[in-house]
């Protein structure tokens, strides 16, 4: 039974109705088979057709999203093209990235029951399925809660529960954890794993970050420009680092390290390692289970990132200062509690914490959008309560998580002019600043282009340029890594790093511990509205009690050093440093 294909895609091509040209196919001659119980991971760069493939399996393409197609997609033996959307909904369940657009009802219980009621199932069966789905997703006891009031992770679990309750043969997850913190991500994948183990459902999973999923997927399909360029089992795709780079996927640090060491003939693995333990095991054997010299010396001695560039002359006067700041929502819940924090000019500060910890509330205080219930926020020497919106906009530039939430104009020039127009700048100054800002982000010449037609990475750059044009002293980035593949993300992070090295103060809110560790020279940890730690990454990420209290997961690089040192992590600032240090102790085979 396991070898029965549940999904059969034969020579399927699809072009969106609004595609730029007849040649712009979202999918091109795709041939894929997924057997019952298999979990197929779809990889590829943003815009390569991953989501379209998932939508085609669900029947949404072409039933609800119109376009031209050729070939066929069969699910459980029936063509999706000739099966109604209503019937398809019983066979395929889709979970999208954004939980906000997936929830309709006013209670969790009603949300999960909606489809079942539409199917006309007996009341008793609906009750049993709802209870089961809620319990599997860890939502028992929340039946009467309003979905709109739940955290991001909880909302996504409600969306998953609503799909699971339908008990479809195929589940499609399109970047289901894109907006979630590491712990919520882990909990969502635990649910998916559990379902696959218990119910043997066939799964299509679209994801950029391989670390949380690679150990339970059964096959990997790599797409490039709408075409399948690889199909095989996970370890075989991981062994091809060049192919992985093409996909823009985030390869687990342990796998990357293992493959680099193997390519240098220092270590041999029977198959590509997937976990820190698998990577560490032969290394520990090779060095006889213990590192012969002082660990700090071994791992490069670095106590903190070397990119700290606090500007000395201004160091005694913080550019942002939270002074005993408490913020309560109108209903009384405490969002920030007695925050005392000074940020100095030229610093790169990473603000980390789980969903709902208070990170965004803190950012809104810096922007003056929220004002403290108690205490004060000082920006560039002035209380935000006394600063005009224009003054704040000139001092702090905010880059939103989703560039679509920041760009509303029909061309790049209008987008960039929006801020300066509000500040009342003259035409000459606007044009000069626009040239400078577009040059900084590498988008010179795009002034007349519609932001809607740009790639995600380009949109993000336009968003940054629309902020830089006002020449802010501080750049505030809200979750810059969300929903982006590594090849899109890297140039943006490098741009931010370059702006920082030129003197810009950077505050970055992030769930991505690797990015925080790599780029920030100072980490502020929030938990339940309180600041529980503040220090260089080398201190923060080694402190178990801080990570535990903030419900954070240690960066993969430090999980790797922990595996190399019998559970006790050592600080190392980059994978290159770690690889260099290990290499110095190993003799080529």
């Amino acid at each position: 039974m396991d070898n029965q294909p549940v999904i059969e895609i034969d020579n399927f091509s699809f072009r969106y109705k609004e595609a730029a040209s007849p040649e712009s196919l979202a999918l091109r001659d795709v041939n894929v088979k997924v057997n019952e119980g298999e979990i197929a991971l779809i990889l590829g760069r943003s815009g390569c057709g991953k989501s379209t493939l998932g939508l085609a399996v669900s029947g949404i393409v072409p039933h609800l999203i119109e376009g031209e197609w050729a070939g066929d997609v069969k699910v459980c033996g029936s063509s999706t093209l000739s099966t109604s959307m209503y019937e398809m909904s019983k066979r395929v369940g889709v979970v999208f990235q954004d939980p906000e657009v997936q929830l309709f009802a006013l209670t969790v219980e009603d949300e999960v029951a909606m489809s079942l009621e539409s199917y006309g199932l007996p009341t008793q069966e609906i009750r049993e399925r709802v209870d089961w789905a809620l319990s599997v997703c860890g939502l028992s006891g929340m039946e009467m809660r309003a979905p709109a009031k739940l955290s991001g992770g909880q909302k996504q679990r409600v969306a998953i529960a609503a799909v699971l309750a339908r008990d479809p043969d195929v589940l499609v997850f399109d970047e289901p954890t894109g907006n979630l913190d590491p712990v919520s991500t882990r909990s969502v994948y635990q649910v998916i794993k559990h379902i696959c183990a218990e119910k043997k459902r066939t799964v299509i999973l679209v994801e950029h970050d391989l670390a949380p999923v690679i150990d339970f997927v059964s096959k990997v399909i790599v797409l490039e420009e709408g075409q399948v360029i690889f199909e095989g089992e996970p370890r075989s795709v991981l062994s091809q680092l060049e192919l992985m780079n093409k996909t823009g996927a985030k390869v687990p640090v342990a796998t990357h390290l293992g493959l680099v060491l193997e390519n240098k003939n220092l270590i041999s693995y029977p198959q590509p390692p997937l976990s820190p333990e698998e990577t560490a095991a032969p290394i520990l054997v090779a060095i006889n289970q213990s590192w012969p010299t002082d660990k700090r010396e071994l791992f490069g001695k670095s106590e903190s990132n070397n990119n700290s560039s606090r500007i000395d002359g201004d160091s005694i006067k913080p550019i942002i200062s939270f002074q005993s700041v408490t913020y309560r929502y109108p209903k009384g819940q405490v969002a920030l509690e007695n925050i005392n924090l000074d940020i100095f000019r030229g610093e790169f500060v990473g603000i980390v914490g789980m969903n709902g910890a208070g990170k965004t509330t803190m950012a809104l205080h810096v922007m003056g959008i929220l004002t403290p219930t108690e205490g004060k926020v000082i920006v560039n020497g002035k209380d935000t309560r006394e600063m005009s919106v224009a003054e704040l906009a000139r001092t702090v530039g905010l880059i939103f998580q989703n560039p679509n939430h920041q760009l509303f104009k029909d061309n790049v020039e209008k987008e960039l002019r929006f801020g300066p127009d509000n500040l009342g700048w003259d035409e000459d100054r606007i044009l000069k600043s626009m040239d400078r800002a577009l040059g900084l982000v590498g988008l010179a010449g795009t002034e007349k282009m519609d932001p809607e037609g740009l790639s995600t990475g380009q949109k993000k750059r336009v968003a940054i340029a629309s902020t830089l044009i006002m020449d802010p002293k501080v750049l505030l980035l809200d979750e810059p890594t969300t929903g982006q593949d590594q090849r899109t993300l890297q140039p943006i992070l490098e741009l931010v790093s370059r702006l920082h090295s030129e003197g810009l103060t950077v505050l970055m809110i992030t769930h991505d511990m690797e990015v925080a560790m790599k780029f920030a020279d100072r980490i502020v940890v929030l938990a339940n509205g309180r600041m529980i730690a503040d220090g260089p990454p080398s201190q923060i990420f080694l402190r178990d009690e801080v990570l535990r209290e903030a419900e954070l997961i240690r960066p993969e690089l430090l999980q790797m050093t922990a595996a190399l040192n019998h559970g006790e992590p050592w600080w190392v600032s980059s994978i290159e440093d770690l690889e260099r240090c290990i290499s110095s102790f190993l003799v080529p085979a």
Partner: protein
Amino acid sequence: MLFHLLGMAEAMIAYEPADSYLHRIHPLTKLALMLFVIIAGMYISGPTFPWGLNMGLFILLVIIALTGKIPLGKELRDRGGYIFAIVSILFVGNLIFSRGVEVLNNPNVRVYFKIEPIIYATSAGLNFAISKTLLILSSIVVVIILLKSTRLADLSHALIKIGVPYSIATIITTSFRCVPMVIDGLLIVYNAERARGLELDKGTRRERIRQWQLLMTPLLIVLLKWVDQMTIVFQSRGLDFSARSRTRLREVPFRAFDGVVISVLLVSLISFIVANQLGYIDVNIY
């Protein structure tokens, strides 16, 4: 202000679970009560009609709400300011603009003060203002009773049971879901534009209108995009408006008690209307 009003609307429609007779009775019974209060309340409000009847109705509703575990005190704390503003305007308006030959020529009506020919504050106006204020308060309480003790899904189902098409009932309940969505969209656009120096409350009236336009157009775009995505998700979950038979997770039973209450309300309402038509209800305290 807009955020505040939307937030208030969101809080007002929120169901408050509790174990009470009000939470157990059928949504149709509560709908009938609401219609009764609003229609009958209008019949017993007039410049020459004793306000005591409206006071009696209001007190009865407060008793029903409190014994039914409706958090009236909390509502009053959260929204008391708005309610006070609304009833104050109504009270003053009715007090000083209630007139007419019948009232002004009545020798028993006392005129407290007047600014001819527009403003007459009379004893009849005072009576009418109290009646109308009590009617508005009763209407607010009965709507709170309905929304706080009834899940919208149950209300929608009750509407379907009495013949309202599934599509209409679903649109009504889904539109309630739109309140938090509009708030989220507004916050996104407002924060994005404020971060680039847009000030809504600065400048001349024309500039302010232009600034609001700058906010509203992107908000519309954001909401349309969301609605587009939600439509796709809605249908991909097997939810459409076709006329097939549907079942329910919860069936709120229609008990004999509901039948008795609705019958009493219906008979009372019809009696009111008939009595009014026949002139029996034309009480004149003067």
